[in-house]
C-alpha cells in the first residue's frame, strides 16, 4: 500500500488518536525497524528494535470489521516480528476502544500499564491509554 492509501484508510478508522497523514506514513515507513503488513481489508504497522516490537497502528476498513481481518493482521504482524527476532510485543490502545481491546486480549495480550488522560480527542475529556504486552516465544 502507498502512503496515500494508508493515510486514506487510517482516516476512515481513527478519530482519536488522530489519523496520520501520508507524509507521516512515508517517513514512518523509512524509519529504522519499521515494517508493514497489509491485506485487502487493512494494515498493521510495527517497529522492531532490540527484541521488542511495538504495534504502531492497526487499521481495518470499517466496512470489513468484525470479520477476523484485525486478527489476521495481528497474526501477520507477530509472525514478521518473530522473524525479525522480537521476543516481546507491546501496544497501546485507547481505553474506550473496546473492540480492539477485546481482540488484543483474545490474542493473548495482557495489561501491563496505564497512561491516564493520554489521548486528546477533538471534543470531550481525555482518554486513557492501556499498554498491553505479549511474550512472542
Amino acid at each position, binding site marked *: 500500500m502507498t502512503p496515500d492509501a494508508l493515510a486514506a484508510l487510517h482516516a476512515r478508522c481513527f478519530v482519536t488518536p488522530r489519523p496520520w497523514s501520508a507524509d507521516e506514513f512515508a517517513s514512518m515507513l523509512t524509519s529504522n525497524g519499521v515494517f508493514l503488513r497489509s491485506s485487502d481489508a487493512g494494515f498493521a504497522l510495527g517497529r522492531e528494535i532490540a527484541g521488542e516490537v511495538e504495534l504502531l497502528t492497526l487499521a481495518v476498513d470499517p466496512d470489513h470489521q468484525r470479520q477476523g481481518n484485525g486478527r489476521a493482521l495481528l497474526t501477520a504482524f507477530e509472525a514478521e516480528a518473530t522473524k525479525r527476532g522480537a521476543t516481546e510485543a507491546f501496544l497501546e490502545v485507547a*481505553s*474506550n476502544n*473496546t*473492540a480492539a*481491546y*477485546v481482540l488484543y*486480549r*483474545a490474542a493473548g495480550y*495482557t*495489561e*501491563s*500499564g*496505564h497512561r*491516564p488522560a493520554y489521548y486528546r480527542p477533538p471534543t470531550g475529556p481525555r482518554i*486513557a491509554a*492501556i499498554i498491553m504486552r505479549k511474550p512472542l516465544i
Partner: protein
Amino acid sequence: MKPKPLILAFDTSVAHVAAALLSGDTVLAKRVEAMAKGQAERLFPLLEEVLAEGGVTWSGLTAIGVGIGPGNFTGIRISVSAARGLALSLNIPAVGVSSFEAQAIDTPRPILSLVDARRDQVFVQELTGGAAMPPHVMAKSEITNTHTNTIGPSDTVNPVAIARITATRYTDATLPRPAPLYVRAPDAAPPRDPAPVILP
C-alpha cells in the same frame, strides 16, 4: 490454640444491604436484602442481627471487611464510612475489597472482572495475580460477547467473599484505609461547597 479470626464484612455498593460473619473458614451468618433506598438506615440494624445470629458481640470482632465498589456513589460511601468508624471505635483493622476481587475470589488468574457501570457500559479490571492494573470503563456489548476469560457483571456482591479476602489481608499493617473505588468521575456537577475530602 490461637482463636480463629472473627470477621464482619458488609457491602452497600449495589441495590442491597449485604453482610456476613466469618469465623476462620466458617460462615456464622450471611444476610443479603435487596434494597434500592434506605441502606444507611438499615445497615446497622442488619449488622446487629448478623452478630446476634452468630452469637457474638462487636468487641469480639478481629477485623472489618467492606465492599468499596465500584457501584452506587452514595451506597459505597455509606459502607466505607461505617467501616472506618467501626475500625476506629473498636480499634481493629478495616479492609476495603473491590467488587472486581470479590466476585473473582475463586477464579483462576488472569481473568477480566466486569462490574456493571450502567449506560451500556461495564467497569473492567484485569486481575493477573500480580500487581493490580487500574480499572477502566468499556462498552458492555462488545466485551460481554467475547470468548476471553471474563467474570461478571453481577447485580450483587457476596459479603462472604469480602470477608474471606479480608481474612487474608487484615494483618498487613501497611494496608491503606478503605476508600471508595469510583473509576468514573461523578455525573453530578460539583457543589458550590466541595464535599469533604476522604482522608487517605
